[in-house]
């Protein structure tokens, strides 16, 4: 799998500066797939390129542009899969990524993918895309669902009215692919479609702004003027950079034209587009008088209502997280791989292999207590992999079913108290799989405030699956300890969330989300999704594991390990823990899960009592995120915010640990 993921910066540098439909310099036709979340863009991408990108049944997983190559008729084509967007004016950072692709002209052809049965809702977006001045193809996906609901779309009439090719498809089965290929291979010779004409003063306002634009832009001046009227900051930035007078004249014209509209341009334009679209639909879209009930509708309702939804949530958590990930993944699977495979076969094999090396210190790099092979590989493969794998499997099943948007709805009220909207439940749940991945996904949240809050909570109180699995395995024999651990995390999550929501300026984000239909998870999809997530995780994890092994070996060899442990010892003893645990905190600095695995070892040697185990587990979970997550925090939130969080979390983690130690001893545990 070579699908490369590119973010905004890369999209910017790849920008071509011609508004026409000529293939890029390398002669490649660049095709961008655009559309609402959940309409099958990624499925179509996979069909076109033969490559896999994660397909999910909830909004907010694709956060960057995914690229792949395909042969489309005579063309060698580059396909760009953009994050789901509802409009050209972006509301989230992911939508901004999509807007950048369109405004910076990194594509030659646009393919607007819509869910056929929701054409009425998507058509205004098609009208916006028509303004971009590029060949446009409208794909009506999920035609099978349209037919099963007795809806009819007059495709030839739609083609005629819009002046663009319309391709009916069922992308998941590959129906209509041939038609799409034919259309795409001719598309370069097609004339650029003309935008529809708007009434109610909108058309005139656009004309006026368009006439004021003097510079050349990679996107049509029509699209720019429309965005400027809607008050879009992205379009404004480009005008300021492009116009000879820094955009002052254009800004003046925009203000004037907006005033003439008698109201905010963004509504006026939206209403007018909606009007044009409904007129058009009257001719091409027919629905039966009575709507049919869809499959899975009742289940969807049960999941979204507190009376039924909360018990189901607890059942899912118990079966999925505790039984499957905790007991099966972290227990059965780890035992199966670690003992018979590593302890009795692989590690002895490595030991024999490296016996020939006469220098003990060099041998120690590979085998021995901190050896790259005996420690690094063993932790990664025997302890972390089964846990992470089982979590990703569980997560992918839920994701594919369409459960998460219902969960978001269910928790919205509770989340508002900690300054988040229900939407944030998606990165938070994903955090239980991998906090690094989840920190990246906070990009899908609408306000900066919400992104900062969720990044902090992920870093502090959400244990990743590896950590979770190992800690569940260690504490599973002690019900009370497990309870104290869970309550400490939940308490910290709520208290810190509540406090930072009060301290951070800004308003709580509002919540809105499309609920996709409940679908039976497709085994193939679930497997590939699990596999690709595990692959991402492993490629990112293994090098860090090895690096951590090398650093520990070097520290040990130079005697620095004792020095650092010496520094940590007073801290650790304030928590009532034996000196050996300082190694765990050192390990935890490299990776949180790595630290947890160290705790697992220490527990097996019987070095800790129940209180110590609980305190260590809580502190380690709250403690500084792993190196990878910290780097992702820096990337997403910037140095200052990331460092600030680091400085907040470290004393907090040890503070909660110390408090817990004193309280548990005091009540006589």
């Amino acid at each position, binding site marked *: 799998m070579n699908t490369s993921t590119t973010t905004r910066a890369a999209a910017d540098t790849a920008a071509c500066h011609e508004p026409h439909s000529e293939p890029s310099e390398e002669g490649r036709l660049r095709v961008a797939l655009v559309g609402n979340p959940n309409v099958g863009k990624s499925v179509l991408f996979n069909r076109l390129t033969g490559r896999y990108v994660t397909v999910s049944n909830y909004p907010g997983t694709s956060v960057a542009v995914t690229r792949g190559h395909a042969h489309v008729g005579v063309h060698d084509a580059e396909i760009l899969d953009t994050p789901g967007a509802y409009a050209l004016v972006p509301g989230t950072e992911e939508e901004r990524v999509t807007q950048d692709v369109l405004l910076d002209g990194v594509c030659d052809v646009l393919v607007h993918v819509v869910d056929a049965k929701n054409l009425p*809702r998507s058509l205004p977006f098609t009208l916006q895309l028509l303004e971009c001045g590029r060949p446009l193809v409208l794909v009506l996906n999920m035609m099978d669902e349209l037919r099963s609901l007795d809806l009819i779309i007059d495709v030839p009439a739609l083609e005629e009215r819009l002046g663009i090719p319309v391709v009916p498809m069922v992308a998941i089965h590959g129906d209509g692919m041939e038609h799409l290929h034919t259309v795409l291979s001719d598309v370069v010779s097609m004339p650029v479609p003309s935008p529809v004409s708007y009434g109610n003063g909108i058309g005139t306002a656009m004309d006026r702004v368009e006439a004021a634009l003097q510079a050349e832009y990679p996107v049509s001046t029509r699209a720019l003027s429309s965005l400027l009227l809607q008050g879009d900051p992205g379009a404004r930035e480009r005008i300021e950079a492009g116009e000879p007078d820094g955009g002052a004249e254009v800004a003046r014209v925009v203000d004037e034209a907006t005033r003439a509209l008698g109201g905010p341009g963004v509504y006026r334009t939206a209403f007018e587009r909606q009007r044009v679209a409904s007129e058009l639909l009257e001719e091409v879209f027919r629905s039966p008088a009575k709507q049919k009930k869809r499959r899975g509708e009742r289940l969807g309702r049960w999941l979204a209502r507190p009376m039924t939804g909360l018990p189901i949530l607890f059942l899912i958590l118990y079966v999925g997280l505790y039984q499957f990930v905790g007991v099966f993944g972290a227990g059965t699977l780890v035992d199966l791989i670690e003992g018979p495979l590593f302890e009795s076969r692989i590690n002895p094999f490595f030991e024999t292999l490296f016996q020939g090396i006469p220098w003990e210190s060099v041998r120690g790099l590979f085998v021995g207590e901190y050896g790259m092979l005996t420690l690094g590989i063993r932790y990664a493969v025997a302890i972390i992999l089964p846990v992470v794998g089982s979590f990703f499997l569980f997560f992918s099943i839920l994701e594919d079913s369409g459960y998460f948007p219902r969960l978001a709805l269910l928790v919205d009220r509770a989340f508002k108290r900690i300054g988040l909207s229900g939407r944030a439940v998606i990165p938070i749940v994903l955090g239980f799989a991998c906090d690094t991945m989840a920190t990246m996904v906070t990009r899908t949240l609408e306000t900066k405030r919400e992104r900062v809050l969720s990044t902090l909570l992920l870093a502090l109180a959400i244990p990743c699956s590896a950590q979770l699995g190992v800690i569940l395995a260690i504490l599973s024999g002690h019900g009370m300890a497990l309870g104290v651990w869970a309550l400490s995390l939940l308490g910290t999550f709520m208290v810190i969330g509540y406090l930072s929501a009060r301290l951070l300026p800004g308003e709580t984000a*509002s919540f809105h989300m499309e609920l996709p239909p409940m679908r039976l998870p497709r085994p193939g999809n679930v497997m590939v999704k699990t596999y690709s997530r595990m692959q991402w995780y492993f490629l990112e994890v293994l090098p860090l594991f090895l690096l951590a092994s090398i650093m520990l070996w070097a520290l040990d060899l130079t005697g620095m390990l004792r020095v650092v442990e010496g520094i940590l010892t007073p801290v650790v003893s304030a928590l009532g823990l034996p000196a050996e645990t300082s190694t765990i905190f050192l390990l935890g600095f490299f990776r949180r899960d790595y630290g947890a695995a160290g705790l697992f070892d220490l527990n097996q040697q019987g070095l800790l009592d129940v209180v110590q185990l609980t305190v260590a587990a809580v502190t380690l979970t709250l403690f500084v995120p792993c190196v990878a997550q910290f780097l992702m925090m820096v990337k997403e939130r910037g140095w200052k915010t990331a460092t600030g969080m680091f400085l907040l979390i470290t004393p907090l983690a040890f503070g909660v640990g110390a408090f817990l130690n004193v309280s548990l001893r005091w009540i006589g545990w």
Partner: protein
Amino acid sequence: MTAHIHRCSAHSCPSQPLTTLRAGGGGIISCLTDPELPRTARLASLGLLPGVEVRVVQTYPAWVVRLGFTDIALDDQMASLVRVLRTA
């Protein structure tokens, strides 16, 4: 279609906020009220625009409204921005 752009005044507008409907109730959106742009722009891009028919599916813990074949979840704040002419 009459699309009110500004806040509807209670005297001149026969519509009511979406949040006064019960589950099962429905209406045609008459206007979106709120001077605060980003939220209303969001509603508009989700397809909640004057002239569109909506039905309330659920009211708690968040609102679920159906338009066409799509269910959209909204919190109280977002839902109260939508005014409807009641039909059911």
